[in-house]
């Protein structure tokens, strides 16, 4: 070694080569001189060269490999070997009752690391998943704070039973039979920042292990845990402004005046009902809202016990005035290990305190119907607390009139307080005498306690126009709910490798109890109580119910030569909801996977890191039928307040026999799935392709039963069948990665087609299907149908005939059966509300310290019934003018449509609601090593809902149920956020 006199602070040219363990050069590895911004990258031969002081330290890194820290030690030629980062390639994925390496998963499983998601504004875990996984569709109920979300995996497998997937949080399956009173989205108990991973189990070979609750897929959520190491503290804060994106296009005051006088004449009764004002009701009820979310978390280890604790506070205001959500969540994870680290204990507790004020969403529909020529306030009347109301000529309120939307918001307080806690204690013990044998005991609970009041001020306009009494006293409701869900899981797991054979066997037992009690009471306001002398204006009611699930399950994984994998699972589920004869169900599944990339003929391909073919088959059940916990029993119900009969002076309540089907059983879905998992260039490009076919039998349907045979004319019974077919494709890529740039893209696309194949006991040609979907503005008309050979959720309307220039002809419909008249026989199933294709694209681009990310989403083929338009166009009869003396506003499209009588069941109102939407764009900047305590800081700016492209004429094409009516619009949000990691 030539010891030249190199000054301590002098720089020399340091060269070297970076190779992997096989001696192959690594191209594009990053070499960074620690503590500086000096760096370079390796070339095509893995060589590098840079100027550095002899006592400098190099940081060498490359994706997919463990980073190395190499002190220069005065060397001028350094050979560096990087090891593959096994963790990344052999990612461990949580599945039901255990974990599996991603490479070895035989079912259709999507694992998502929550931190890697491109995030926008998220109040609840469901907000994080929107558009991120193929086949998973998440539609929020609108823009209200904490709005609930409708999650569907592969289209849902039922018609009248639940279509919600099973959600498991840290091993505790959450009760999805009924929501939590007072809380729109039960998932928002967990702060999105506390989530570590989502695992979505899609096909039956993965979900069958959950038996009779698994037909709609399973989402497993794990929360972040502590790590051994130094204590880390993190802070995340966001501040946001929400604004309304657009208004429903209703007439303004001058246009409405012109319309009314044009149709009826200057001195007509209708024209005389116009007012003199110019009020934009939609502007009055919406406003700009400010929200914030603050989160602090601490993780690390105390005396070798890893822990993580977090606290967060959210205050979210909605753009509909008076809507608000405040939430305090806390979580604590402890993970001590005992007995030589063979006993792994996990204690997780999550708690939440949530206060909500729900704004009166009826005000949204009312604002688009209320006459814009009327004022908001009025003086001189005893009625209405100063808000404008329609009055008869004698000064008393018109009881069937529309209600002042501003009053609907301000004079109603719908508030709730919810406490919730989910927790579990898991003990995992590795046996000494038999290595490979492990026992796991998990005990969990999920408790919630809600309390709410809906209070309407006395004498407000609502008290004269709605409710049972219409007498001016506020009809108040007080409700409480207690839910308790306890779980005990136990399983034994044996893992061993015998030569070329690898075996993993698991057998277990699970017991879960669900309990719910609710109570409603109806108090007068204090003032009325004093006047009337009674505390309650009608009797309250209460209800309590419970159910149990007991199961035995097992799984066998066999791997040969690390190339051929076989999985069998079996679960025997017993549910207390069914009669003893029908109680137990056996749910098997089998899957086979072939790791092609391990085969000799493919091992040579350097660039191929993963190629696995999977085939799976499984049977799952759905026991969440939506008709209570005792549907098979012959029961009697005592009547509630308001239903009695009198004999003489004596009042008797009533005892009614309830309709029941003692042969009721769960719905059963059989799934076939075939898929390919692929990965290239060390999984720099990876993804999956799946094809599936699912058939649901014993589909529940409410069918007419012959009159006289049961205590109702309709019975919920297992009669039908439904099938779903589809294709999913996903690709994740890192197109660019080098010292300065890094770009990650994820794209997924899925196609689903469903069809109802059977609905009744006999094939009755006269049976059209289940007609449902009531609409505003026409009592008794329903516009949706589930029919045989149609997708479920199809619309049921008359086929509209148009003039040459596109005007609909009023009452002009296609006479389908050519019988010369237009009646019920001419209604046809038409289009559907579910989409054909869903796509999601997320991109994350990093340049030095900057990052730019966005999420884009598309839904194609979904249609919607525009009830807002169908109920606000016609001008004849009592459509626009009610003969008691008030007018209802119309949409500007009324000029074009020109209907005299409303035509609610016309295909004219079924509109294409396909859309392309950008969910969020984020621009952020990270600061590294600001000072010694602060590891890094990131400042970012996000726009949520920047744009949406759609042909739909309504306010927002994205909503649940197919009928657009009164949706709480989603706001555009501008968010400034900061995260600090110490």
């Amino acid at each position, binding site marked *: 070694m030539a010891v030249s006199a190199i000054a301590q602070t002098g720089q020399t040219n340091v060269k070297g080569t970076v190779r992997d363990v096989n001696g192959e050069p690594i191209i594009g590895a990053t070499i960074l001189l620690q503590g500086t911004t000096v760096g370079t990258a390796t070339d095509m031969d893995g060589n590098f060269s840079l100027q550095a002081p002899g006592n400098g330290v190099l940081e060498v890194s490359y994706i997919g490999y463990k980073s190395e820290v190499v002190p220069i030690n005065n060397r001028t030629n350094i050979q560096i070997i990087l090891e593959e980062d096994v963790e990344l390639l052999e990612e461990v994925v949580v599945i039901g009752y255990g974990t599996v390496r991603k490479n070895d998963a035989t079912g259709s499983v999507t694992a998502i690391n929550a931190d890697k998601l491109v995030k926008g504004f998220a109040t609840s875990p469901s907000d994080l998943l929107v558009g991120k996984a193929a086949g998973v569709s998440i539609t929020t109920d609108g823009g209200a704070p904490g709005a609930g979300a409708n999650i569907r995996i592969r289209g849902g497998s039922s018609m009248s039973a639940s279509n919600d997937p099973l959600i498991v949080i840290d091993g505790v399956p959450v009760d999805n039979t009924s929501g939590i009173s007072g809380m729109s989205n039960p998932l928002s108990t967990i702060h999105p920042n506390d989530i570590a991973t989502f695992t979505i189990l899609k096909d039956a070979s993965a979900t069958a292990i959950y038996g009779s609750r698994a037909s709609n897929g399973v989402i497993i959520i794990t929360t972040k845990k502590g790590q051994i190491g130094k204590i880390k503290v993190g802070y995340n804060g966001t501040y946001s402004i929400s604004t309304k994106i657009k208004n429903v296009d209703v007439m303004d005051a001058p246009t409405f005046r012109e319309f009314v006088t044009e149709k009826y004449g200057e001195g007509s009764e209708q024209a005389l009902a116009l007012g003199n004002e110019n009020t934009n009701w939609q502007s009055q009820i919406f406003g700009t809202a400010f929200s914030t979310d603050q989160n602090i978390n601490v993780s690390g280890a105390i005396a070798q016990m890893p822990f993580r604790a977090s606290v967060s506070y959210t205050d979210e205001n909605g753009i509909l005035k008076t809507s608000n959500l405040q939430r305090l969540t806390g979580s604590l994870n402890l993970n001590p290990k005992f007995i030589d680290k063979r006993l792994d204990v996990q204690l997780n507790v999550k708690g939440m305190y949530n206060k909500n004020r729900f704004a009166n969403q009826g005000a949204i529909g009312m604002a688009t119907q209320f006459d814009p020529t009327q004022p908001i306030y009025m003086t001189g009347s005893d009625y209405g607390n100063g808000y404008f109301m329609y009055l008869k000529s004698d000064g008393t309120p018109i*009881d*069937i009139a529309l209600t002042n939307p501003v009053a609907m918001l301000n004079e109603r307080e719908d508030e709730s307080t919810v406490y919730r806690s989910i927790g579990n204690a898991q003990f995992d013990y590795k046996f000494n*005498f038999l290595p490979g044998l492990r026992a796991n005991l998990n005990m969990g609970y999920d408790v919630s306690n809600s309390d709410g009041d809906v209070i309407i001020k006395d004498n407000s306009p609502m008290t004269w126009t709605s409710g*049972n*009494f219409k007498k001016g006293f506020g009809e108040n409701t007080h409700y409480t709910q207690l839910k308790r869900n306890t779980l005990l899981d136990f399983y034994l797991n044996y893992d061993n490798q015998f030569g070329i054979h690898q075996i993993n066997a698991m057998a277990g037992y699970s*017991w879960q109890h669900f309990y719910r009690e609710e109570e409603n009471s109806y108090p007068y306001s204090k003032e009325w109580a004093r006047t009337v002398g009674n505390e309650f204006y009608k009797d309250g*009611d*209460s*209800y*309590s*119910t*419970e*159910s*149990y699930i*007991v199961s035995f399950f097992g799984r066998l994984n066999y791997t040969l030569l690390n190339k051929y994998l076989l999985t069998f699972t079996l679960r025997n589920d*017993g*549910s*207390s909801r069914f009669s*003893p004869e029908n109680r137990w169900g056996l749910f098997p599944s089998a899957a086979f996977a072939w790791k092609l990339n391990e085969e000799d003929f493919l091992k040579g391909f350097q660039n191929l890191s993963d190629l696995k073919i999977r085939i799976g088959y499984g049977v799952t059940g759905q026991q969440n039928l939506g008709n209570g916990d*005792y549907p098979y029993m*012959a*029961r*009697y*119900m005592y*009547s*509630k307040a*308001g*239903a*009695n*009969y*009198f*004999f*003489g002076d004596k*009042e*008797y*309540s*009533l*005892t*009614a*026999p309830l*309709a029941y089907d003692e042969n009721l059983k769960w719905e059963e879905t059989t799934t076939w799935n075939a898929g390919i998992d692929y990965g290239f260039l060390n999984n720099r490009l990876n993804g999956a392709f799946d094809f599936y076919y699912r058939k649901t039998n014993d589909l529940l349907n409410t069918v*007419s039963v*012959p*009159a*006289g*045979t*049961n*205590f*109702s*004319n309709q019975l919920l019974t297992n009669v039908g069948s439904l099938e779903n077919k589809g294709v999913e494709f996903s690709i994740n890529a890192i197109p660019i990665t080098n010292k300065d740039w890094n770009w990650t893209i994820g794209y997924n696309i899925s196609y689903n087609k469903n069809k109802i194949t059977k609905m*009744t006991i*006999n094939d009755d040609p006269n049976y059209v299907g289940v007609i449902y979907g009531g609409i505003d503005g*026409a009592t*008794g008309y329903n516009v949706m149908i589930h029919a045989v050979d149609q997708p479920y959720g199809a619309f049921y309307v008359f086929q509209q005939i148009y003039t040459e220039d596109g005007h609909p002809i009023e009452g002009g419909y296609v006479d389908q059966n050519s019988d010369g008249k237009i009646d019920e026989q001419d209604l046809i199933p038409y289009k559907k509300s579910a989409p054909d294709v869903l796509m999601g694209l997320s991109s994350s681009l990093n340049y030095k310290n900057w990052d730019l990310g966005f999420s884009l989403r598309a839904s194609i083929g979904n249609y919607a019934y525009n009830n807002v338009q169908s109920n606000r166009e016609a001008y*004849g*009869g*009592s459509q626009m003018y009610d*003969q*008691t003396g008030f007018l209802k506003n119309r949409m500007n499209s009324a000029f074009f449509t020109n209907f005299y*009588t409303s035509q609610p069941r016309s295909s004219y109102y079924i509109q294409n609601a396909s859309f392309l939407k950008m969910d969020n764009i984020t621009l952020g900047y990270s600061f590294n090593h600001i000072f010694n305590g602060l590891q890094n800081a990131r400042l970012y700016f996000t726009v949520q809902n920047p744009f949406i492209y759609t042909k739909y004429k309504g306010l927002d094409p994205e909503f649940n149920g197919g009928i657009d009516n009164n949706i709480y619009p989603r706001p555009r949000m501008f968010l400034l956020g900061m995260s600090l990691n110490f």
Partner: protein
Amino acid sequence: MKNIKYITITIALLGIVLFTSSCIDDLNTVPLDEDELVSDRVFGKDLNAYTQSLAKIYAGFAIGGNAGGDAEQDVAGIDGGSQASFLRVLWNMQDLPSDIAHCAWNDPGIPDFNQITWGASSPWIKGSYYRLYYQINVANAFLRETTEDKLNSRGASETLKDSIKIYRAEARLLRAMTYEYALDLYRNVPFVTEDSPIGNVLPQQIMAKDLFNFIEQELLECETDLPDPVVGYSQNYGHVSKSAAWAILSRLYLNAEEYINQPKYTECITYCKKIIDAGYQLEPVYADMFKADNQNSKEMIFPIRYEGAETMTWGGMTFLLCMGPADLQTATNAKGAWQGYRAKSSLIKLFEKESLSENDARKSMLHTELTTNIEIVDQSSFKNNGTPVAKFYNVNKDGSLPPSSEAYIDFPLFRLGEIYLNYIEAVLRGGEGGSRTQALGYMNELRSRAYKTGGTITDSQLTLDFVLDERGRELFWEAQRRTDLVRFGKFTSGDYLWPWKGGVAQGKAVDDHFNVYPIPSDDIGTNTNLKQNEGY
């Protein structure tokens, strides 16, 4: 050491087995809530449970469900406050397709009633049919739970059994009454009794003749166990008594020629006389029969009772109060004014046929002063198209108000006025056991009650046509008219036309098959034993 290990493992395994087997027993749950019970907990030795079950049958004629406001509705898939409200749908099916009333609303099925153009998929017809069968089902269930064997197995005392005997007769009567309505509306219907097998067996269709015989036999049999009639109010008011059986029989026999082509007018007269002999009397003022305190009326034979918020429904009497004009809402003490229903001009003309009709208290219920046109020109416009009617007043006889504007008026399902008219018509049609003189006497009693002065007629004026007209004048707005028109052969024929009959403004004849309603398409599809009525 190993031994201990194996022993520990064995004990642990045993423990697990015992533990899990006890947990499996958890799956046998029973409803927790004290308001939701399995039948062995409902019925025991206490009379109250049986009374409450019986009350459910009665209540089904008044309200729509098991909770106020027709919530927890009895008939599934149909609005409990409208199409499945017994009284409301019966009224719509009897008074709309006749010369009496017309409704301006566009709700599905209503225009078809106005015009006699309905089909088997009408939601109203479906509601009516399934409401009738709900009543039959609940009555059958009650009878099944109160057999001698069941009562003995529960250790019922003799006093309990005696009370139940009367209850059983009541249930049988209510069931027979329901079948009588089914016979009148649908003729050939599925037949179930408490002895029919429950479950997957499809009921057989019973033809009109056999159904008539069944109803007749049931009424004659249960008559003996029913209590004697009490005129006016008593602590038993609301329960049926012998007079209810007689009243149903009188209606059944009067229409026998129409139902089964066999005249039974003599039998009709027999039972009319039994009622008249029991001491019932006409309410002195006609309007008082339809007021909030009509439970005291001596004319009331069997009511559907309404007691304000305790029997709260949007159908039934609430409907009869609220269906009219806003102008009369305060006077009638109604809680709403929905402005849909009005009288056709043909009803006005029924009154104006009579000289001095301006003295007729019944005619004054047709408020011609509130309309500019007694003809209905625009079917969907309420104002000034036809005449608003206010027959039911939710006020007491003396003008005082009941506790609230919830309905307190009991609906007179059977009253003496109808019995008089049945007697008169049966005599005129050749029944024996009565006399023309007596018939004329009753007719003049009815008319004198209605007219301020005068109103009586002579024997030569007493013809069948006159009886049909008088039935219209006396029983309008009481859910009776269609049956009468059918019996007289005037419902479908071109002999008697009224506005919008057949869908045209002046009226036209409609096909005869409309004399009977169709069985709803839902049941035709589900029960393959049923054959649809002709023409549908």
